[in-house]
């Protein structure tokens, strides 16, 4: 597999949200606006790249039986690094995303890539894989965020496009399920074209 396709496969073919259906909790919870969705995606990408690299480097020395716990500790370490960095440099973003930053530890995308890719590939390939999947996740979260913000508040990235109040339900919990359901149908029908 070429280096470029390692990065680009995360956008459509192996898109973590729409094709693999992983990491649903942050996908639904943090996409109340385009900015929130994008920040969550980037935060996950940061952890994903670093944990992929570290795990691919140590995989040879980890006994098979304690593989999963060891990977979780590696991931939790990078999440703690991310928490401290975000608290120091972007406290406002950290406060909005709240609980979902520490919960990157139990995001199935991160552990999934460690198991499916990083533990049998080189450090560079694993970093590119993490970058691709991370950016694919960021892309889908941003798209969901844009749709919900446009319908719910009439703006995109904070720029008001439609005057007046939006349809509030799209910012609330039911809207998250609704928007994801319809985007998933559009993705399956027009982009994957397999159904």
């Amino acid at each position: 597999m070429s280096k470029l396709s390692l990065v680009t496969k995360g956008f459509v073919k192996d898109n973590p949200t729409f094709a693999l259906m992983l990491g649903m909790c942050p996908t639904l919870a943090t996409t109340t606006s385009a900015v929130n969705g994008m920040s969550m995606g980037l935060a996950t990408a940061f952890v994903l790249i670093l944990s992929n690299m570290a795990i691919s480097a140590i995989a040879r020395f980890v006994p098979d039986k304690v593989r999963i716990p060891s990977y979780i500790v590696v991931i939790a370490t990078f999440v703690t690094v991310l928490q401290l960095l975000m608290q120091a440099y972007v406290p406002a973003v950290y406060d909005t995303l709240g609980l979902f930053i520490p919960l990157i530890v139990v995001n199935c995308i991160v552990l999934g890539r460690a198991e499916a890719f990083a533990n049998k590939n080189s450090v560079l390939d694993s970093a590119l894989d993490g970058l691709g999947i991370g950016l694919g996740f960021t892309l889908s979260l941003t798209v969901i965020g844009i749709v919900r913000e446009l319908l719910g508040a009439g703006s995109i990235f904070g720029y008001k496009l439609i005057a007046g109040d939006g349809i509030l339900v799209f910012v609330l919990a039911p809207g998250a399920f609704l928007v994801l359901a319809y985007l998933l149908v559009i993705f399956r029908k027009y982009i994957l074209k397999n159904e």
Partner: protein
Amino acid sequence: MEYIIILISAVFVNNILLSQFLGICPFLGVSNKLSTAAGMSAAVCFVITLSTLVTYLLQHYVLDPLGVGFLQTIAFILVIAALVQMVEIILKKLSPALYSALGIFLPLITTNCAVLGVALTVVTKEFTFGGEAHMLNLGESVMYAFATSLGFGLAMVMFAGLRETLALNDVPKAFKGVPVALLTASILAMAFMGFSGLV
């Protein structure tokens, strides 16, 4: 009285699945059959309550006195993973029937974000049950964890029931599987929105 408010608020008003979006993976993954959904809920209920008790004590009597609160995430996930393993071993010995019923769900619970989510919530967030904002004490924390997992079970069982009926219906091709499940969840979440303002 306070315990009743916690119960109602965690089960209906701030339902963990339908308004907080924690534990969505099992919600979508194992809700095809009512019986598996109920089994999963029982296992989650057990683990959430127990792990919250342990992590609460860990935070207040180990991490805080040592001044290493930032190790919270790492420490909690290790405790949860160990606890799930322990529960598995004990159940295998004490109740083989229950063990084989819950079988595959038990190891999955480690990566259920509801467990870590509740454990982190009770030690970081201030609540306003019955008067001014305060951190939960041990009893309230365990009650909150138990009530939250009851809410998890309620939403799981309702959703599984709906999906069982849904499976018999003719659904457009592109909507099959997850999309139609998400639409159902959306309607269920709208229904639960009716509870807001109750507490």
